[in-house]
C-alpha cells in the first residue's frame, strides 16, 4: 500500500508542479503585488537610495540647509583624492600636476572638475577622466546606494552632521523602491470610474452570456438537431469559423465592416445616410458590436456542447412523442430542455468565468471606448498594469484590480460548484470499498 501511494505521488508530481508554477504562483504573486505601490519607477526587484534633487523636494521645508548641501555636487582636489589617482596606475604626470597646480581647489560640479582634468598636460582619455574625477567627489548628490547603511556611511564619510531621525527622514525621502500599502484597494473602492467599470463588466458578461453563449447556442443546437446530418455538419462548421479565425483578423473584419468607408457606411450611403464609424459612433453602438463580436465567437462552444448532449437523448423519446402528436415546441419544452440542465449549467459556469477574464476582443475593437464606455474590469487592469504612454506601468494597482477579479472568479466558481452539487458528482461509488 505504501509503495503504491508513493508511486501515486510520483505520478502526480509533474502535474502538481505545473499547477503550482502556472496556476497558483501567478495568483500568489498577484496577491503580493496588489499590496504594494509597485510601478516601473519603483522597480520590481527593490529600490535604491538616490540623493537626487527631485527626491528631496519633500524635505525642502523640513531641513532646507541640509537639502541644499546634499544636492550640491562638490569636487575637492585634496591629498586623499590625489592618492586615489596614484592608485589608478595612470601616467604619473597626472597625479603630480594635480598636486602641484590644483591642490585645494573645489569645484561645484563634476563637469567643471572634469574640464580641469581634461586640461592636464597628459590629457587622459574620457574613461580615465571619469575615474579621476570620481576620486575627488566629496558629495552624495546623484549617487545611488543599494542600502540604507551605505547611504549613512557615505553621509558620515563626507562629514554631514545629521541626527538619526534626520537620516531616517532622508532615507525614506530618497528611497526609489516600492513599499507595502493597502492604498490600491482604497483607490479601487473610492473611484467613481471603478464603479462604472464594474457595471460595464456585469453588463458585458450578462449580455454575452445570456444572449449568445447559452440562448443562441441552444437555438443553434436545436436547429441543427432537426436538420439532416450533412446540412447540420456544414451549418455547425460555419458557426465554428469565428472561433477558429485568428482573433486579430476576425476583429479587423468587423472593423472594416463598420468604418466610415466600410461596408455598412457604403450600403447605408445608398439610402442617403452620411458615412460614419458605426463601431464607435456612440456607446450603444460600441456595446452592440462588442456583444456581437464576442457572442459569435462564444456561441460555438455552447452549440457544440449542447449538440452532443442532444445526441445523447434517446431517439425513441422523440419518436414516441411524435406518435403522441407532440409539436416541435412541445418536444423542446418537455424532452430537450429538462434533460439539458447540466450542460446548460456547465456552459453558463464556464463562460461566465472566461468572459470575466477575457478582454482581447474589446481591446482590439474599441480599446474600451468611446470614452471609457466599453472598458471592462480585465481590460482596465491590463491598461493600468501594462500600458502607460509615459513608460510608468502601475503594476501594484493593476495587480490589485486583477486580484479583485480573481476573488470574484473564486466566489462564482464555489457558487457554481454548489449548484452543480459537486459533492454528489465526486461521491465514492457505492459498489466499491
Amino acid at each position, binding site marked *: 500500500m505504501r509503495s503504491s501511494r508513493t508511486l501515486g505521488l510520483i505520478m502526480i508530481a509533474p502535474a502538481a508542479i505545473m499547477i503550482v508554477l502556472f496556476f497558483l504562483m501567478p495568483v500568489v504573486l498577484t496577491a503580493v503585488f496588489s499590496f504594494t505601490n509597485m*510601478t*516601473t*519607477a*519603483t*522597480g*520590481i*526587484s527593490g*529600490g*535604491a537610495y*538616490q540623493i*537626487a*534633487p*527631485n*527626491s528631496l*523636494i*519633500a524635505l525642502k521645508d523640513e531641513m532646507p540647509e541640509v537639502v541644499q548641501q546634499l*544636492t550640491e555636487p562638490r569636487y575637492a582636489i585634496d591629498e586623499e583624492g590625489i592618492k586615489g589617482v596614484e592608485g589608478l596606475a595612470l601616467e604619473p604626470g597626472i597625479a603630480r600636476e594635480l598636486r602641484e597646480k590644483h591642490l585645494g581647489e573645489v569645484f561645484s560640479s563634476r*563637469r567643471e572638475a*572634469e*574640464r580641469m582634468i*581634461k586640461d592636464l598636460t597628459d590629457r587622459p582619455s*574620457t*574613461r580615465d*577622466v*571619469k575615474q579621476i574625477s570620481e576620486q575627488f567627489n566629496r558629495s552624495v*548628490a*546623484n549617487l545611488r546606494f543599494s542600502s540604507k547603511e551605505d547611504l549613512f556611511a557615505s553621509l558620515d564619510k563626507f562629514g554631514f552632521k545629521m541626527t538619526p531621525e534626520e537620516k531616517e527622514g532622508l532615507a525614506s525621502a530618497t528611497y*526609489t523602491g516600492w513599499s507595502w500599502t493597502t492604498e490600491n484597494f482604497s*483607490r479601487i473602492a473610492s*473611484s*467613481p*470610474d471603478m464603479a462604472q467599470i464594474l457595471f460595464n463588466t456585469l453588463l458585458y458578461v450578462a449580455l454575452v452570456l445570456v444572449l449568445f453563449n447559452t440562448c443562441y447556442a441552444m437555438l443553434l443546437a436545436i436547429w441543427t438537431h432537426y436538420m439532416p446530418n450533412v446540412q447540420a455538419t456544414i451549418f455547425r462548421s460555419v458557426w465554428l469559423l469565428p472561433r477558429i479565425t485568428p482573433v486579430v483578423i476576425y476583429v479587423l473584419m468587423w*472593423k472594416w465592416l463598420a*468604418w*466610415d*468607408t466600410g461596408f455598412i457606411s457604403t450600403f447605408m450611403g445608398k439610402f442617403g445616410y*452620411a*458615412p*460614419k*464609424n458605426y463601431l*464607435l*459612433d*456612440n*456607446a450603444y453602438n460600441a456595446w452592440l458590436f462588442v456583444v456581437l463580436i464576442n457572442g459569435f465567437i462564444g456561441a460555438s462552444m455552447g452549440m457544440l456542447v449542447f449538440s452532443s448532449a442532444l445526441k445523447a437523448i434517446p431517439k425513441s423519446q422523440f419518436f414516441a412523442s411524435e406518435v403522441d402528436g407532440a409539436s416541435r415546441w412541445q418536444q423542446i419544452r418537455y424532452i430537450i430542455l429538462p434533460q439539458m440542465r447540466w450542460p446548460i449549467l456547465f456552459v453558463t459556469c464556464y463562460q461566465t468565468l472566461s468572459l470575466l477574464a477575457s478582454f482581447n476582443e474589446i481591446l482590439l475593437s*474599441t*480599446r474600451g*471606448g*468611446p*470614452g*471609457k*464606455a466599453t472598458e471592462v474590469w480585465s481590460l482596465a487592469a491590463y491598461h493600468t498594469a*501594462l*500600458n*502607460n*504612454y*509615459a*513608460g*510608468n*506601468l*502601475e503594476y501594484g494597482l493593476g495587480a490589485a484590480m486583477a486580484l479583485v477579479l480573481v476573488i470574484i472568479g473564486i466566489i462564482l466558481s464555489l457558487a457554481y460548484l454548489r449548484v452543480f452539487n459537486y459533492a454528489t458528482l465526486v461521491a465514492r461509488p457505492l459498489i466499491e470499498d
Partner: protein
Amino acid sequence: MTILPTLKCMTVAAAILASTTALSFAKELTVTVWAGGTGPNDVYRLDAIEIAAEQLQREAAIKGEELKIKVEKKAYSGWEDFKQAMTLAAEAKTAPNIVVTGHEDIGPWAQSGLVVPIEDYVDLDSWPLNNIYENLMDIASFSGTVYGIPQDAESRPMFFWKPHMKAIGYNDADLDALPQKVQDGSYTMKNLLEDAKKMQDKGLVQPGYGFYPRYTNGPDFWQFYTSFGGTMEQDGKLVFDKAAMQRAYQFFADAVKDGVTKKNHIGMPADQWWKEVASGKAGIWHGGTWHYARYVNQEGLKDFFGNVIFTLIPAGEGGKANTLTHPLVYLLTSGHDKDDTEIAAQLIKIASEPRINVLHAVKSAHLGISKSETEIELYSSDRWTREATERLLPYANAMPNNADFGTYWNIMWKGLEASWTGAKSVDAAVNDVEGELKGTLGDKIIIR
C-alpha cells in the same frame, strides 16, 4: 644540433605569446538596440548605430586594437509593445544595450535604475555632444544628470488644407501671413473652430471633418492645455491648472457640439485618419513634423506646400501659441558589463554626429539636434526641415521628465476622453480629474 629544436621551441612560444597579446586587444561584442514608434521612414534611428559601429571599429584599428561590433536592431512600430517589452526585459536583466524612446521615460526609468546616466561614459564637452541644442540636452536629463542623448527633435504643428481655406475667403497673402498671425496670437483657437465650421457649412468637408484632431492619446494634447494657459511642471513639482484644463477640455467639447469634430473620433482606424488628412477630406488637423514624410512618401501627397500650410498651435483663452517637442533619446540600460556599456555610449556619441543624424532628420522629416546639422546641405536644402526648424522649434515646450508624469497624463487623458465623447460634462470631468490626482499623487502635484 640542439640549437634548432630550442630555436623552434622559442619561436613557437613567441608566436603563441604574440597571438595571446593580439587576442588581449581583440574584443568582440554584440550591441542590441531597440527603438519604439519606428516606422519605415525612421530606420536611421537604428541604422545610425550600425554606421557608428563601423566608424568605431576603424578608430580602434588605428589604435592597434581589434574591435568587432555586431549591431542587433529591433524596431517596434508602436509604443505599447515596446514599452512593455523594454521595462519587463530590463527587470529581467535582459534589456538591450541601447534603447531609443521618448524622453518622458527617463524619469521613471532612471528612478528605478533601469537606465544609467550617459554622462558617466561620455565627455559632454566634446564634439558632437557639445554642439547639440542646450534645451534638448536639458530634456534628456533627469534631476540634473544627463541620462540620454537626443536622437531627434520634432514639433507638433497645426495643419490647414489650403484649397479649403481659400474657398472660405483666404487669399494667398492671407495664408502666407497665417503662421505669423498665429504666433502673434491674433488667430486663436476660436478662429480655428470658426474656420472649420465655415468649411463644413460650405460643403467642402463632411460634418465632423472640419477640425480633425489626433485620433489616439499622445503628447499633442498637452499643447492644448498649454494653449489655454496651463503649466505642466514648476520647480520640480507637477502642476494641474484646473481652469486651464477646463478650457482645454471645453475646446474639444465645443468642437463636438459645433459638429466640426466627431464625437467618436478617438480610436478610429489609423490608416483612415492618415488617408483623410493627406487628401483634403479633413480641413484642419494637428500632427507632427514627421508626418510630412508619410504624407509625401506613403500617402501620395506630392505637392505638400501647394496644399498644406502649417503653424504653431494657436493660442486659446489665457494662453499663448505654442508647440511641443517630444525628442526621442538614446538611453543606456543598466545590467550590462561596464566596458560594453562604454562602447554602446561611444556608438551613441558617434551616431549623434551631424552627418549621420541628418540622414534620419531628412528621411523621416524630424528636426535636427544640433546647430551644425542645419548647416549641412542635405538639411538646409530641404524646404520642410528648414522651415519647420525656423518656425516651430524656437516656440517648443517639452513634457517634464518627472517619474509621476505618466500617472498625471493617464488621468488627464481619461478626463479629456470623457468630456470629448460626452460621457461626462466638462465640469464633472475636471472635478473627477482633480479628485483622482489628489487621491493618487497627493502633494506631488500642485493643484490650482
